[in-house]
């Protein structure tokens, strides 16, 4: 049976365009995502105190952590879809470490002991802004993932949406004047975490759809050979 399959696969052979390196793909994605973020921010208008905030190291540290989450998330998402190209444990760990650093940078600003645990004002606008700024980068990363192998689809999906939402939130923090730690934790960090969870779910669905197409290919009649 393998010999028949081999004969069929040879008949179906077409030249392919090789996948770019992970670094190139990450750079391409980042360029597109940054362009979308800059466009979105220019439409919505930056916060009036941005220049002042950029002189405060906690604010800068948070933004750098978010950028690291985005870059490492995208890199891991693309890398995990290429067979045998790296230590998968490290690839899964790095974006999570960056997320941890971001949460720590927010929590470090929180007043100790007597601070309330829940925000007093519910603010859904930041999550919506993040989602709208992250939409195109998220779609682009999911389209780019389609050319990779679904070796770890949940992780790839999770990291691709984590990367998009982190960049979206980076842009949102350039718009949003509210920097209180509780606000940032609940209405900035939590939406990013939810998007990452959605990505994990989407990755799983993608893998199931690919498996169905796979099985359909197995039962199709062989395509007639075309001249090379």
């Amino acid at each position, binding site marked *: 049976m*393998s010999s028949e399959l081999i004969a069929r696969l040879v008949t179906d052979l077409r030249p392919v365009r090789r996948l770019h390196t992970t670094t190139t793909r990450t750079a391409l994605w980042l360029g597109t995502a940054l362009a979308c973020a800059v466009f979105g921010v220019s439409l919505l208008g930056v916060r009036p105190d941005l220049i002042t905030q950029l002189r405060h190291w906690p604010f800068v540290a948070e933004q750098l952590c978010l950028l690291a989450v985005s870059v490492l998330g995208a890199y891991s998402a693309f890398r995990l879809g290429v067979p045998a190209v790296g230590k998968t444990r490290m690839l899964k760990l790095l974006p999570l470490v960056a997320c941890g650093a971001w949460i720590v940078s927010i929590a470090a600003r929180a007043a100790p002991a007597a601070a309330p645990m829940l925000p007093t004002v519910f603010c859904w606008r930041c999550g919506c802004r993040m989602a709208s700024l992250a939409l195109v980068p998220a779609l682009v990363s999911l389209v780019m993932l389609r050319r990779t192998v679904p070796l770890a689809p949940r992780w790839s999906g999770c990291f691709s949406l984590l990367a998009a939402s982190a960049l979206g939130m980076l842009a949102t923090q350039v718009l949003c004047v509210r920097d209180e730690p509780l606000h940032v934790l609940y209405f900035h960090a939590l939406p990013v975490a939810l998007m990452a969870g959605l990505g994990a779910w989407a990755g799983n669905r993608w893998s199931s759809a690919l498996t169905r197409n796979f099985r359909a290919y197995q039962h199709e009649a062989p395509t007639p050979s075309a001249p090379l």
Partner: protein
Amino acid sequence: MDAGVETLLSELLTRAQAGDRLAYEAFLVQAAELVRVFVRRHARGGESLEDVIQDTLLAIHQYRHTYDPARPARPWILAIAKHRLIDAVRKQRRRSATEVQEEATTAELHARESPAAPCSAGLLAQAWAALSKAQREIIELLKVEGYSVAEIARKTGRSEASVKVTAHRGYKVLRKVLEGAP
């Protein structure tokens, strides 16, 4: 695997990416053997060896564009084989959970299949045409040619569970057409 074979494998796959069919055939034959050895070493017994090898070859075909010629081919092939094997193990576990239920239903259907009211040749032809190609093949081997499930599994390269499920679905289609006729 010695360096010479490793280099050859890499070169064959690189040429296959460019569309060289001879190189691709040679590569797939080598890859199938490599995967066979790997799966025999790591399979836990419930999975069909041939199914995993074929799934791996299909995945290699589908994702051949992800291979980087600057890297060795063997780890790339085995990474795909490992992924397909894990998938097969998970599928086998899901099947084992539903197999008992399927067996009981199939046994019940077998008992109910024995003679009902006679059917016209036209109606039988209609029922037969309603089956999928795979269902027709398996029911013909089971009922007409008298092969056992295990023999059909070996002959068609499917797992025994897959043969049973396909037959069961075929019987359901036949029953629907035959019982639905006026």
